[in-house]
């Protein structure tokens, strides 16, 4: 058995079976988030795709790549969204470099 099975994505809804009210609350919330609001569903789909990558969740990458295609989002738009996620990820890593610098300066100057 492998840890990730693409078929498991289809079973996502089943998490409700072992905790009905929490599961339903989650899916209610989830579905509300993606409705048309101050952001369009198209914009939200691209954000979801970027986060799917930073979270490195294969299920979400699978789901939001398909969702993007369904919405007519181009592969260039998708790749730019992934770069946004990657830039924030690497920025977040690098900005911690300041912490390291502070520590070095405190301990060894």
């Amino acid at each position: 058995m492998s840890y990730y099975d693409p078929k498991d994505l289809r079973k996502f809804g089943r998490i409700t079976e072992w905790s009905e009210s929490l599961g339903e609350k989650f899916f209610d919330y989830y579905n509300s988030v993606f409705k048309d609001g101050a952001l369009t569903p198209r914009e939200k789909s691209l954000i979801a795709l970027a986060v799917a990558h930073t979270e490195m969740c294969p299920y979400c990458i699978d789901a939001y790549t398909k969702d993007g295609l369904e919405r007519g989002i181009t592969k260039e738009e998708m790749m730019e969204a992934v770069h946004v996620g990657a830039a924030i990820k690497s920025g977040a890593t690098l900005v911690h470099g300041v912490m390291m610098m502070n520590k070095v300066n405190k301990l060894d100057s």
Partner: protein
Amino acid sequence: MSQTKVLQSLHKRQSPLAQTERQLKILEDGIFANGDAPKFGHKIQQSLGGPLKTVNLDILQVNLGYMCNQVCAHCHVDAGPDRKEIMTKETMEHCLKVMESSAVKTLDLTGGAPEMNPNFRWFVTQAKARGVNEIIVRSNLTIIVANKKYHDLPEFFAQQQVHVVSSMPHWTKEKTDRQRGSGVFEDSIKALKMLNDVGYGMPGSSLTLDLVYNPSGAFLPGDQEALCQDFKERLDQSFGIKFNGLFALTNLPISRFLDYLIASDNYEDYMWALVESFNPAAAQAVMCLNTLSVSWEGYLFDCDFNQMLQMPINDSRQHIAQYQDDLMQGRLIKISQHCYGCTAGAGSSCQGAVT
């Protein structure tokens, strides 16, 4: 998506899938045979409380032949320049008789490229004279610029007040050409401009130009309204093109699209996606309830898809020459698992989403 370039029809390539029995066997096997997924008939029974039956005849959809100037990768007709099947004038006359005698409101002309039938213009003019409310021509656009003899089609359409419905899988060249052949995007843009020039799709004009969007790969169409908005903005900004509405169609797993699904190892996932997006509201509005499809030879089918699968209507009168109104009143519709394509999400018909 990797894709083999299709330059010939399945028929020409003598692909095993050119045999409709083979397609139907694939559709009935797999997840449906082993009981993993419910069969379409079962789903319909569950949600409608009975089988699908015709209600009345609103739309007569006539396939004027399988000949086409394009060889699109996913064509459900398996059309192309190598297909010589063409409807005769005699069969058209039978169709005209039905338009006179029945309450049919819309004549929907399809193909192949219906304009390539030598009697196309005659047929449209005759149907118009019979007073049918609406004549739809499903034009692939490129035919208009393919040959000099077709350049005046926009004027002809305008004169006859034809409702033009044209395929456009995406507003980018890359995606359109990959699905429909290289150069198709630019020719389609040229043809759309010619249609706009005679008034099609223009604000305040009575000439209607709708686009048909169908996904370029193994995924379902998104929200029709949102896609329409996107197409409108992009085609207007980049090319100044205007159109009225956009019909988002689901690709049905038959013919060349089935071939593609299998070759790209997407078949099972795609069938699951269709099954899981089954929408009971769409099931109540499938187009076969009020549509009759006529093949180039005059045979009758529940829809264009059943025509391509060679599943004739469930009646002994199977030819347009034998048409009687009771054929459309409560006749059982023939189904297989491809029908899930009509009931997925917002539903899909030749007029787009049904819910």
